[in-house]
């Protein structure tokens, strides 16, 4: 192998250094949050969190815990940098995206620290690709301050129940309205598009509902264009938890099983749409 193609020896001090036998374990999760070019990577000993935000009201996080990697080491308490996610994904999928059985791309990722590029070494079938991606100063991230004690309503559903609904959302509607209630209609998704309004109700005793903890009737609207990208995460997941707090902030948590059966999480947080009056609800 040419000298420049060799990954650095493990003895060198890298702020972040990780190895993954199957790069798809990382790339498929990152695709689920890829709705903007830029992402903030945050690594601790527990693993890697990649955050994407838009319009100051939506945030998506992909969590890949350290156990998913064959090797994962972070030198300081935490490492944080901003990187172009489109470029990162193009590099991670340099050998193509079709998953032929038995073939996978091996990945080694190294980051020297502040001001240095993110280095990727990818190998498939004896061919090696080396990528050097420039990193930027991390920007301040939104804090939705969403913790379990502030949750008002929570439903856990099997993803297959929501997939079709989300794929077929009426995009001519500006908003997606979510109603959660201890009484009928229990859980309702509504859109108000050019052709009219559409309501999709899920009964609380449906097989698809794994858990139902609704204490208060809440109806909130969210900009549909902001939530639509979450469909990618929904498509990959087996379960989704939908939670709202007293302000109407929405948390969608997706449980995703990768090719090896390991569990990862993606979550989306969204602010309620402010352009509506009480009278409209």
């Amino acid at each position, binding site marked *: *192998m*040419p000298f*420049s*193609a060799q990954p650095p020896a493990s003895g060198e001090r890298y702020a972040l250094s990780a190895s993954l036998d199957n790069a798809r374990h990382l790339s498929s999760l990152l695709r689920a949050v890829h709705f903007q070019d830029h992402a903030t990577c945050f690594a601790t000993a527990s693993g890697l969190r990649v955050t994407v935000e838009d319009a100051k009201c939506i945030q998506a996080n992909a969590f890949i815990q350290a156990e998913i990697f064959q090797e994962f080491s972070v030198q300081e308490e935490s490492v944080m940098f901003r990187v*172009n996610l*489109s*470029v990162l994904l*193009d*590099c991670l*999928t*340099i*050998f*193509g995206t079709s998953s032929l059985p038995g073939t996978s791309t091996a990945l080694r990722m190294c980051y020297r620290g502040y001001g240095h590029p993110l280095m990727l070494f990818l190998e*498939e*079938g*004896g*061919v*090696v*690709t*080396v*990528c*050097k*991606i*420039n990193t930027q100063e991390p920007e301040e991230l939104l804090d939705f301050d969403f913790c379990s004690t502030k949750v008002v309503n929570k439903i856990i559903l099997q993803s297959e129940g929501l997939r079709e609904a989300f794929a077929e959302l009426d995009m001519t509607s500006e908003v997606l309205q979510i109603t959660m209630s201890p009484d009928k209609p229990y859980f309702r998704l509504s859109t108000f598009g050019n052709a009219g309004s559409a309501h999709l109700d899920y009964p609380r005793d449906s097989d698809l509902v794994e858990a139902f903890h609704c204490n208060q009737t809440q109806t909130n609207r969210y900009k549909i264009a902001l939530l639509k990208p979450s469909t990618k995460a929904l498509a990959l997941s087996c379960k989704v938890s939908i939670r709202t707090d007293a302000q109407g902030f929405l948390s969608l948590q997706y449980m995703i099983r990768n090719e090896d059966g390991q569990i990862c999480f993606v979550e989306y947080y969204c602010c309620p749409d402010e352009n509506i009056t009480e009278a409209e609800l």
Partner: protein
Amino acid sequence: MRFRAKIVDLACLNHFSRIINTIAKLAKTCILRLTVCKLYFILSDKVANGGASMWCELSQGNFFDEFQMEGVAAEHNEIYLELVPDNLSRALKTAQSAKAVKIKLTNKHCPCLRVAVELPSLSSSSRIVTHDIPVGVIPRRMWNDFREPSVPDFDVSIYLPVLKTMKSVVERMKNLSNFIVVEANLSGEMNLKIETDLVSVTTHFKDLGNPPWASADGCRSSAQGRDLESMAEACIDIKKLQQLLAGQQVNPTKALCNIVRKRVVHFILLHEEVSLQYFIPAIA
């Protein structure tokens, strides 16, 4: 000047269509040269195509059941036509399950290649779909513009890696940069590199093998004194390379490229019945 030809065998027809599809991906307009034995698709290195040129050669006997050609004159028994290969490609799309395809040069109002596709029909009379593809007849005095390009005096000649891998890599790199550096050495190693403000990516291929070029004047023997590890590189338009690879629907029998450092990359793709050469000039 006369030309008429007929394909009856479905496999030959599909193969011919695939070749036309590949040509259509590489050239908006090109020259079709007809001789008694062969067809040539030629693109000469004009500024309009970004300086790329192409030479594709096939033996008519491998495709056509009938082939009659009479050139402009007895001593110049050839026909040169300018056409848009995509028109031919689209006409042949209707022929996927045809009984026969006839091609004829006509000149009713203007010169055309008339492609008549005979389709299967339940009734006794056959269904025929006819496409008239306008062509320009190239006068004899201009034929010298379209001679076969000579193999350049290259620095390195190397077999290409598995085209599928090369295609995936180049497609991704195309998202990241407009230009790509192709470099290779005489030790069977080839690198594809892109570099921009945001990112640099290098893919390393090895154990590719270097084709042995026999030459009458023995000039290749100078390679023996040469440094086998040193790379010859050329920076080319990535879109041209991606178009060449995207057009390859079947794995060639032989695929190689010759690099003249900083000047041109010359690709040669050989299939059993057709050979394709594509020259991509280096960006200054």
